[in-house]
């Protein structure tokens, strides 16, 4: 069920340069169904900024009724979000969308993330590992000071880091790492910039893959037609990222 809830900030921490880890608490967490879902957050009780901001669920804990978001403070809204302190309220609409289908992985999965696309892969990796599936993490960042959750991912499986400027791990993009790795996995899951998703998709045309897309959003629940993409099915077919996605099987979305 989708709820709008005034949740409470439990903690907020800058875990990399302008990257914040924000944990909030409330009953809404009970309805979270799969890694890869997102929430639509109202950052201020003001008309400016007006719209909610879509942020992925990076991890959740139903027992504690808490979930964590990881986001980059970039524009007006996310910078305001970064000012929230423990005890503050936060208006959250969610959980939204359909997450990654963990049941589609059999033995070994590649989790490929770029920048602020990395966060949802964390809960995904935990879920896959719980099912006994081996996970390999290939994560790309701008530079060393933007890298986060390396240790967390390492504790769940092999983890490879690429940075654009080479200041940490391999220099270049995740695709540079992928080229070097064996193709011995049965499913891949990816989240990041659209260009990265495209590249990953092309790299493994024969594998089962699931990609999480981004689009500018209005409502976040499927009513406004802001976030549509055409699909490969037919000339007239389209999906809404917010309610049909954000995760889609590789090969479906025309981006």
């Amino acid at each position, binding site marked *: 069920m*989708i709820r709008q809830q005034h949740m409470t900030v439990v903690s907020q921490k800058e875990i990399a340069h302008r990257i914040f880890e924000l944990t909030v608490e409330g009953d809404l967490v009970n309805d979270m169904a799969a890694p890869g879902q997102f929430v639509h957050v109202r950052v201020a009780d003001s008309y400016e900024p*007006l719209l*909610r901001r879509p942020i992925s669920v990076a991890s959740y804990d139903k027992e504690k009724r808490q979930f964590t978001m990881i986001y980059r403070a970039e524009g007006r809204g996310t910078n305001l979000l970064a000012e929230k302190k423990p005890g503050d309220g936060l208006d959250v609409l969610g959980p939204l969308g359909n997450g990654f289908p963990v049941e589609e992985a059999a033995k070994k999965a590649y989790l490929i993330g770029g920048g602020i696309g990395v966060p949802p892969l964390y809960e995904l990796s935990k879920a896959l590992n719980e099912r006994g599936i081996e996970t390999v993490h290939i994560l790309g960042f701008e530079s060393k000071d933007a890298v986060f959750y390396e240790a967390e991912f390492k504790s769940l499986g092999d983890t490879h880091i690429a940075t654009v400027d080479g200041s940490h791990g391999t220099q270049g993009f995740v695709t540079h790492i992928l080229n070097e790795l064996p193709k011995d996995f049965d499913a891949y899951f990816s989240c990041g910039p659209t260009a990265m998703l495209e590249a990953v998709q092309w790299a493994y045309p024969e594998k089962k893959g699931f990609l999480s897309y981004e689009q500018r959003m*209005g*409502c976040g*629940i*499927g009513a406004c*037609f802001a976030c549509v993409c055409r699909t490969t099915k037919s000339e007239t077919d389209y999906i809404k990222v917010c309610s049909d996605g954000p995760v889609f099987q590789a090969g479906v979305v025309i981006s």
Partner: protein
Amino acid sequence: MTNLAIKLPGLKLKNPIMPASGCFGFGKEYAQLYDLAQLGAIMIKATTVEMRLGNPTPRVAETASGMLNAIGLQNPGLEGVMGSELPWLEQFDVPIIANVAGTTTEDYVEVAKQISTSPNVHALEINISCPNVKQGGITFGTDPDVARELTQAVKTVSSVPVYIKLSPNVTNIVSIAKAVEEGGADGITMINTLLGMRLDPKTGRPVIANITGGLSGPAIKPVALRMVYEVSQHTDLPIIGMGGITNVDDAIDFLSAGASAVAVGTANFVNPFVCPEIIEKLPKRLHELGFDSAEELIGRSHRL
């Protein structure tokens, strides 16, 4: 007990609050959140003869206290709307106002004729004001003669009362309102969005793929309110007012300015429960202001 009911051509509204067209889809998504029967009415997304896929993305951009959209009338077409969306909405005891769009007069006539026969469609809202379709659309709303003729054509075929949705992007909105009144309109809905644009300061490029978009939200409320105030003094047609309504006091303002009912658009995205919340708060607020019914409030700004 405060009486919220409002009677308008074709419409017996439980209360004067309804979601605005394009901001509520065909109701399905919001039905997950609350019972749609609470609403005064529902203005569904624009329907065109054929299915439309709309504009490329990005289709929305945020602005100070507002947003731009250029959805481009994406909709499943007359067949899809009449075959599946409207029948699904029949489960709720709520009148539907069907928003009709097109490129030519024939388009409008075709959609109006057919969709007005749906059992739960109690009125049409003729969208002569959408800034996001390249041909047709916009000119209907900016020339009084064209607006009059379109109104007449639609009136001839419609089985239910016809409301014309006015564009704010005009020099003289009263002249358009009078023209559609002469054309036989049963009511007016206003305002649609103001034409606007946002650039990305880094690249200098328009943020919206369609370059320009329609500005909505609290930012436009002063313009909308002024136009409702003007039009309500110069025509006898009832008005469903909209433009930036976000809370109960905004709704009160539009009724005071002369609207008989109001629609809430963009605010649904900010607070998906905004319509039921306003409906819940309205009786208490009316009571505080010394009114026994919503109806008494209509046009009070003119009487002061």
